[in-house]
């Protein structure tokens, strides 16, 4: 029996000729990522070594990445102290892939990792963040783990007791119509699968629409695969992956490619035709509560958010800027823009996207997770409604359980900002 791409990656990472779904393995880790919750990882890592008489040293400082993004600049003394603790640890352990609160190399972890060429096809990537699934966009097996599990990775260089996941094959053919974006595709898929439909499984993406999709869009669909419960999303590396690595991530030379076997065993196969797809909205309070935009058009909103690890890339800002250029966002609406990294921020500045957005009335916020997780930079008031390009709309997600969050693409968000109500961008 053939192998899925994740089975192949796990076979390589464990030095076996083959593995199959259900096997328990301990794959070697190529990249271990944390953000501010690295403070908890450090605590648990030191606990592991307590009483052993051994010095607490990480297994390989060149394979650990730490990126400050969740609360930057620090919103509280507690966060600032956690960040300080991590800085000290990074210096002591010699961790090189550290991205501090800086305008030259900072950003959201799920943008920094691909942008700096840290993720390679066929690799095993773990992160103390559920949206680590993003990095499957480059053909890696990338999944989220908890802080204590990361402490074990730092100590041993492998993930302990991983059950090889089954894989759902999703084939997307056809062409995404104008103003229908990768975000609409993944919202549609999450609605189809439900919030737990891919729990303990991987989503492997195939088809013409995926092959034509740039890496930025693949990052969006892999990012939100976890919203269907998936361990990871993955797009087998192809010419576009090669192009991205060479042109955008500064990785010279050819990179490995790994494809699933033709006779790989899948738990389920889903076929989607992209051509008739409409803009999609995830309605409160679950990500799988997905409807076509027409079903909720006209709903009044007070806050529009464009950005995050899901939709804060250059093409996202480009389409939003094009829609609001020379227009004004509606009175009574706050529009917040969070580019995914400082590299993107500065490029969007050069190209005039940020100017167009700010002239229309948007507030450009520094790259980071911002208000997505309800900590700072854009909490909602009681009874308020937000329309956001982020990835979660759970009750209380944007800092207030008395508010509502709808999720959408950057095109829908920008068109809606002009009207002050949820709006179909295809009418503009």
């Amino acid at each position, binding site marked *: 029996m053939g192998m899925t791409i994740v089975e192949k990656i796990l076979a390589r990472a464990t030095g076996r000729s083959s593995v199959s779904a259900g096997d*328990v393995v301990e794959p070697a880790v190529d990249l271990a990522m944390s953000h*501010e*919750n690295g*403070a*908890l990882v450090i*605590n*648990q890592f030191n*606990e*592991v*070594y*307590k*009483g*052993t008489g*051994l010095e607490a040293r990480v297994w390989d400082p060149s394979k650990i990445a730490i990126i400050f993004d*969740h*609360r930057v600049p620090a*919103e*509280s003394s*507690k*966060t600032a102290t*956690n960040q300080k603790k991590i800085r000290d640890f990074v210096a002591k352990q010699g961790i090189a892939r550290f991205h501090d609160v800086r305008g030259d190399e900072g950003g959201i972890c799920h943008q920094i990792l691909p942008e700096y060429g840290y993720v390679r096809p066929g690799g095993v990537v773990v*992160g*103390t*963040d*559920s949206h*680590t699934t993003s990095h499957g966009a480059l053909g890696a097996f990338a999944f*989220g*783990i*908890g*802080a*204590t*599990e990361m*402490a*074990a990775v730092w*100590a*041993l260089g492998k993930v*302990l*007791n*991983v*059950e090889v996941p089954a894989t759902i094959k999703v084939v997307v053919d056809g062409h995404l119509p104008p103003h229908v974006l990768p975000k609409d595709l993944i919202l549609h898929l999450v609605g189809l699968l439900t*919030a*737990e439909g891919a*729990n*303990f499984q991987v989503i492997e993406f195939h088809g013409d629409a995926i092959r034509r999709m740039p890496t930025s869009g693949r990052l969006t669909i892999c990012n939100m695969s976890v919203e269907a*419960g998936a*361990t990871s999303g993955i797009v087998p590396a192809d010419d576009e992956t090669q192009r991205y690595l060479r042109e955008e991530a500064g990785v010279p030379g050819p990179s490995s490619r790994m494809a699933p076997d033709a006779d790989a065993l899948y738990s389920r196969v889903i076929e989607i035709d992209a051509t008739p797809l409409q803009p999609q909205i995830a309605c409160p309070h*679950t990500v*799988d509560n997905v409807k076509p935009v027409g079903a909720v058009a006209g709903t009044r909103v007070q806050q529009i958010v464009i950005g995050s690890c899901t939709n804060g890339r250059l093409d996202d800002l480009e389409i939003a800027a094009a829609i609001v250029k020379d227009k004004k966002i509606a009175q009574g609406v706050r529009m917040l823009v969070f580019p995914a990294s400082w590299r993107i921020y500065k490029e969007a500045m050069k190209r005039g996207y940020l100017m167009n957005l700010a002239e229309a009335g948007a507030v450009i916020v520094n790259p980071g997770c911002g208000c997505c*997780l*309800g*900590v700072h930079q854009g909490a909602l008031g009681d009874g308020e409604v937000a329309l956001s390009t982020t990835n*979660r709309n*759970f*009750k*209380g*997600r944007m*800092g207030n*359980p008395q508010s509502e969050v709808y999720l959408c693409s950057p095109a829908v968000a920008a068109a809606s900002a002009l009207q002050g109500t949820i709006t179909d961008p295809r009418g503009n």
Partner: protein
Amino acid sequence: MAQVVMTIGDDVSTDTIYPGRFMATVLPGETPQYAFADLEINAKLREKKIPAGSVIVAGNNFGCGSSREQAASTLKGHELVVVAKGFARIFLQNSCNLGLRTVICPDIEASEGDELEVGTDGVANKTTGRTFRIEPLPKARQAIIDAGGLIAYTRKRVMESAPRG
């Protein structure tokens, strides 16, 4: 025997268990104060009115969303037991790693105040007289639970791999 102190539906997210606005608090000794921070049960937990071993009964996909380990440590701090029709992957792993007792019970039916006997093979609802089967935890997790949690398990592995001399 343990009492059901809360019943809650499907897709309970980590934002409900441990809201994001408290995420700067990370240490297991400090997280229990924010358990279900936006629900009524939080006050009872903080006032220590809920005895250790009390049960939360949930639907499918309990703990979906974030990888935040605080969602497991906050419930572990109160020694609660979660009996759910199903759990999200990362939450389940975090729970096993930290020793929070999670029980997969696909057909569970119970109301607040019911008395449950949570065994190794099944859950008996003593109030309604009905019993429900339990699904075993993913086998990858059992070795860690048996070792007393992931820190102890990793410590053992680190000691085994350390050069002798």
